[in-house]
C-alpha cells in the first residue's frame, strides 16, 4: 500500500515536467510580451526590464533557468505584479479558492446525493419527475446564467445577500451556489441512475424478499453503489472546484486563483501561468490518487492497479 502510494507520487514528477515544458513552449509561441503596453517603452528601458527578469537569454537558457528554479521549488517572480513572487500570489489566492470550492463541493455532494436518492427511491413519481426537470436545468445552465440570475434576483431584487465581495460567510452563499449548481445536478442524476439500477438487481430483491429491513437495504447496497458512481466523477470535480472558476470569481469579485488561468495569459505573465498550471496539475494527480484509494476502501472487489476509467 505505502509502496503503491509512493510509486504513484513518484510518477507525478515526469508528468509535471511534461506539463511545465508544454506550457512553457506554448506560452513562448504567443506573440506579444509582458512589457508591450499602450504606451510603448523606449528600447533602453525595455532592455533594463528584460535583464531584470532574465528574459534576455536565449529561449533554451530561459527554459533551463526556469527548470532549475522549479527543482528548488521556486516559481519565480511575477512580471505583472511588481515585487511579488508567484508563490506569494498563489499563497493568497489558493486558500480562497479552496474555501469556496470545498463549500461548493459540500453543497453539491449533500444536495446531489439526497436529491438523487429521493428521486431514485420513488422512480417515476411526481417527485422524481420534478427533480428530473430541476437537474436537467442544472446540468444545462452555464455558471454565468445562474450567476446573473442570482445577482439580479437575490441581490438586487430581494436585497437578501450581497452581489459580490468576500467579507464573510454571507458573502460565500451566492458564489458557492453558482459553483455547485452543475455538479449538484450531475451528481443527482448519477445517484438516481445508480439507485434505480441497484433496486432492480437480484440481490436487492432477494434481500427484500428475505425480510431485510428497507433502511438496511438502502444503507448497505444502494448508498454504497451510489457513492461508487459519484466517486468516478469526484476526481476531476475536486481539482476543478478547488482551483476556482474564472467566471464565478469574476462576476462575484472573489480573490481566488481561477482568474489567473486567463489573466496571466493575457498579461503574458509567464511565471504565473506556469505556477497555476503546475498547481492545477498536481491537484488533478493528487485527487485521482485519492479517488483510487477511496475506491479500494469502498469496494474491496477492486484491487488497486490505477486503471479505473
Amino acid at each position, binding site marked *: 500500500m505505502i509502496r503503491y502510494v509512493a510509486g504513484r507520487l513518484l510518477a507525478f514528477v515526469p*508528468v509535471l515536467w511534461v506539463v511545465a515544458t508544454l506550457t512553457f513552449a*506554448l506560452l513562448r509561441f*504567443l506573440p506579444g510580451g509582458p512589457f508591450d503596453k499602450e504606451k510603448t517603452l523606449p528600447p533602453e528601458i525595455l532592455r533594463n526590464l528584460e535583464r531584470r527578469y532574465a528574459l534576455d537569454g536565449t529561449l533554451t537558457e530561459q527554459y533551463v533557468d526556469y527548470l532549475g528554479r522549479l527543482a528548488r521549488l521556486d516559481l519565480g517572480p511575477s512580471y505583472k505584479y511588481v515585487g511579488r513572487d508567484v508563490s506569494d500570489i498563489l499563497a493568497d489566492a489558493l486558500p480562497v479558492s479552496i474555501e469556496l470550492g470545498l463549500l461548493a463541493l459540500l453543497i453539491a455532494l449533500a444536495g446531489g446525493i439526497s436529491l438523487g436518492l429521493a428521486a431514485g427511491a420513488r422512480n417515476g413519481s411526481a417527485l422524481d419527475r420534478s427533480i428530473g426537470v430541476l437537474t436537467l436545468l442544472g446540468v444545462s445552465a452555464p455558471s454565468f446564467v445562474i450567476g446573473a440570475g442570482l445577482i439580479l434576483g437575490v441581490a438586487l431584487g430581494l436585497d437578501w445577500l450581497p452581489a459580490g465581495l468576500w467579507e464573510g460567510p454571507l458573502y460565500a452563499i451566492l458564489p458557492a451556489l453558482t459553483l455547485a449548481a452543475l455538479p449538484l445536478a450531475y451528481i443527482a442524476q448519477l445517484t438516481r441512475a445508480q439507485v434505480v439500477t441497484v433496486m432492480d438487481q437480484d440481490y436487492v430483491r432477494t434481500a427484500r424478499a428475505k425480510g431485510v429491513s428497507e433502511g438496511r437495504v438502502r444503507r448497505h447496497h444502494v448508498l454504497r453503489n451510489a457513492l461508487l458512481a459519484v466517486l468516478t466523477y469526484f476526481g476531476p470535480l475536486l481539482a476543478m472546484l478547488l482551483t476556482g472558476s474564472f467566471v464565478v470569481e469574476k462576476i462575484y469579485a472573489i480573490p481566488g486563483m481561477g482568474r489567473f*488561468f486567463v489573466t496571466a*495569459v493575457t498579461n503574458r505573465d509567464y511565471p504565473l501561468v506556469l505556477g497555476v498550471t503546475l498547481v492545477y496539475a498536481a491537484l488533478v494527480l493528487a485527487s485521482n490518487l485519492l479517488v483510487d484509494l477511496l475506491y479500494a476502501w469502498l469496494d474491496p472487489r477492486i484491487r488497486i492497479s490505477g486503471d479505473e476509467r
Partner: protein
Amino acid sequence: MTGSKLAGALGALLIAALVVVALSGDRLAGHRYDAQDAAHALEPPSRAHWLGTDALGRDQLARVAEGARVSLLVAVGATALALAIGLGYGLLAGWLGGRVDGAMMRVVDVVYALPDVLVIVLLIEVLQVTLAGVPDIARRVAALVVALGFVGWVGVARLVRALVLQAREETWVEAARALGLRDRRILLRHVLPNIAGPILVAAAFQIPAAILAESTLSFIGLGIQPPFSSWGTLASDGFEAMRSYPHLIIFPCLAILLALVGFHLLGETLRAVLDPRRRL
C-alpha cells in the same frame, strides 16, 4: 421507456427549432443580424423586434439566430474533432495494449493534468496567430473548434480504449482471431460496430458540453468576437447592461438553456436505446 421517448422527442423538437431559427434567422426576424438602426437602439421586445434591439439598433432575434449558427457550428465541429482523435487513439491504445497502451495513456494523463481553461486560452491565441490571413470569423471558429476538440478528445479516448479492452476479452474476438482474420478487419468490422453505441452516446453529450464551453469562453471575451456573435458574446454584452436592459441578457441565456436541455434530453434517450447497461 415511453417517458424516455417523449423526452427524446421533446429534445429533438427543441434542437430542430433552434436549427430552423439558426438557418432562417434573418428572414424570421425581418432584419439582417448586422443591420444597424440608431433610431431604434436598445428597444425592449416589440412587434417589429420580437426580442428587442441592441446598442446599435440591431435586431436581437436576428443576433440570437446568428449566435445559434456560430455556437452550433463550433459545438458540432469540436465534437467531430474530439470524436475523430479520441476514436483513433482509443482504438489503437486498446487494441495494441501492453506497453504501447501504457505510454499512450501517460499522454492522456498529461492532457488531463493541464487545466482546460488555460489550454483553450493558449490554443486560441496560438491559432489566432498561426491562421493569420484567414477571415476573422473563420479563424475564431477554427480556433475554438481545435481548442475544444483538444480538451474533449481525451475523454473519448479513455472510453473507447476501455470498451476495446473489454471487447478483446470477448469470446467472439478470440474466435475471429482463430479464424485467421486480420487485426484491422476485426477491429473495424467487428469490434467497432459492437462498441459504437456507447461512443455515440458519449458524442451526444459532447455537443452540449462544447456549447457550454464555447458560451463560457465567449462570455469572458475569449471566444467569438464582434461583429460576429455567439450566444456567449451576446450574454456578455447583456451582462454589462443587465440593470437597464434585461432583454439583452435574458434571451441569449434562454437560447443556451434551451439548446442544452434539448441536447441532454436527446442524449438521455440515445443512452436508453443504445447503451442500456449504463444508465449514466
